[in-house]
């Protein structure tokens, strides 16, 4: 098997120092093959966005820092390269789009200038060339009347159009990996579908891999090949969409899936998961999910479960699972 495009191993991101140190991402591992789409799902505060920022080495520091783990991308260890080289990776090899197309565009520049920005930074293009390329990109992402639109400011565009602009800017240098952090959360449902369709289309066309971060399980089901379910800074379950959605192994995943409204079940009340995602300051010991878990056992309070292979390519971290194939314990042990 060839080396995956991106491989994250035992990633740890912590905030604060010494006794006040809080672990926000705790031993997260996953891999993305070239051209593949990986979904990272989790509630707010599960560490999914931070994981993405850590891949780009953009964790706000201070107070945060990457305390451990390896990130390999295109055969290089991103932790080991200089800041200069990292700048050449960001935007050029890994593109990123954000949740709020509203605030992710600078209000004082026209959208054309902002799409051209990455080209000017990375490819050293002059103003005119960059602007011509930006026009082509804006047309490619489906902005009607692009020559006029590119001279407008972000506040003159609708949310969906702004997200298209963001996509154009992120893909300007044809990255091999696109990280999309909740790209459709701020948009209404019809626009959401259009943006997702556009992303899929561009992904096929450019052959790039996509890491899609979302809390919308519907989006995941439509878009991705494999899913990583995160809870409390750790990976709860990982596998293909069919595996994780069809045969969920972790109690958290099961509860998540049950809380989706469904058309074929006639239910008065939608099941919810009791309690809330713990804040960093009050992370429970042992398995992070045990206070909310209906199957919690004594051991869950004491130790963090290691990932167990449920079936080939499908792993989950739960003591309730039959321990058939114990996997090399790397995730929890690094703490």
């Amino acid at each position, binding site marked *: 098997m060839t080396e995956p495009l991106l491989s994250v191993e035992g990633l740890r991101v912590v905030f604060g120092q010494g006794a006040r140190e809080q672990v926000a991402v705790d031993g997260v591992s996953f891999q993305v093959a070239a051209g593949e789409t990986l979904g990272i799902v989790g509630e707010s505060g599960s560490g999914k966005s931070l994981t993405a920022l850590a891949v780009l080495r953009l964790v706000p520091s201070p107070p945060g820092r990457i305390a451990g783990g390896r990130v390999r991308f295109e055969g290089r260890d991103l932790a080991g390269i200089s800041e200069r080289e990292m700048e050449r990776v960001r935007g050029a090899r890994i593109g990123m789009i954000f949740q709020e197309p509203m*605030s992710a565009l600078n209000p004082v520049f026209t959208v054309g200038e902002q799409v051209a920005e990455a080209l000017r930074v990375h490819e050293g293009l002059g103003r005119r060339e960059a602007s011509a390329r930006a026009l082509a990109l804006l047309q490619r992402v489906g902005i009607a009347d692009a020559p006029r639109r590119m001279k407008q400011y972000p506040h003159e565009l609708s949310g969906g159009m702004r997200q298209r602009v963001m996509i154009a800017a992120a893909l300007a240098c044809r990255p091999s990996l696109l990280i999309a952090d909740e790209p459709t959360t701020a948009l209404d449902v019809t626009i959401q579908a259009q943006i997702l369709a556009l992303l899929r289309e561009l992904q096929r066309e450019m052959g790039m891999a996509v890491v899609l971060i979302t809390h919308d399980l519907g989006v995941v089901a439509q878009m991705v090949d494999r899913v990583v379910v995160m809870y409390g800074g750790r990976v709860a379950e990982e596998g293909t969409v069919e595996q994780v959605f069809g045969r969920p192994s972790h109690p958290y995943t099961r509860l998540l899936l049950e809380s989706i409204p469904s058309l074929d079940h006639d239910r008065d009340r939608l099941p919810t998961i009791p309690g809330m995602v713990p804040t960093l300051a009050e992370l429970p010991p042992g398995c992070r999910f045990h206070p909310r878990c209906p199957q919690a056992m004594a051991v869950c309070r004491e130790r963090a479960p290691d990932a167990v292979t449920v079936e080939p390519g499908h792993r989950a971290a739960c003591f309730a699972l039959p321990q058939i194939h114990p996997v090399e314990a790397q995730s929890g042990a690094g703490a």
Partner: protein
Amino acid sequence: MTAADAAQPPAVPAGRSLLRRLLRHRLFLTGSILFGLMLVMAVFADLIQVAAPERMHYRFRFQNPSWQFPLGTDNFGRDLWSRLVHGARLSLGIGFAVVVMTGVAGTAIGLLSGYFRRLDEPLMRVMDALMAFPAILLAIAIAAALGPSAINAVIALAVVYTPRTARIVRSTVLVVREMEYIQAALAFGARHRWIIFRHVLPNSLAPLIVQLTFIFAYAVLAESILSFLGVGPPPPTPTWGNMIAEGKDYLREAPLLALFPGLAVMLTALGLNILGDGLRDVLDPRLRVQHD
């Protein structure tokens, strides 16, 4: 005000509509006319003078306003109008130089300490130390130590007003640097220098511009105070402060000698202040509440 409003920095709107909104603003218009008149006086001083400002007409001392001497003459028989317009040139010139120096230094310090959090503590403690002294006292001390001259007055005033400007720029930068487009620019691989000049600075300009108009007003006022106390440009240089200082000895006999330069200082400061208020209303309406 919602959190989203507070987080969104004021956008500097496109040129034409900005100008239109400014011209529709009555305060701004009044202020710019007042200040504009002073500016015209300063720029065309050589054309509208009736005599050289230092030329003494011994036979015409303490003249009342007349066709020959529009505002009368002083104790040396120098034409007051001519001195006033040349004084405008110097006083506004000093004010402008202070604005430029303060603007550059204050922006640089504010950007550095707001953007690079490690520099924040050391830089801001130095600024605090400077702000601990009453502004005008510190300016007098610096000007006195450097010796009386126009350039030294500019330096003294710039040192005094830089901390305030730096603080204002810093506080805007602190808001702007948390904007998602800064994160986006980082994710596009932009360097810090690029981000600071292309993203942070343009979005921090509005409060700075407003602040600089007020600094202009303070500087004109402070310059006349320095001159009045004898630590500004030395006489017979016609600055407004010098003219007031010389005129005060004859306040009873010839009140106009101190009155006209005093009025000039007042109208300039007034004009700049209401111009700044108008600018603030248009550029950054959110600041209105805090300032009043």
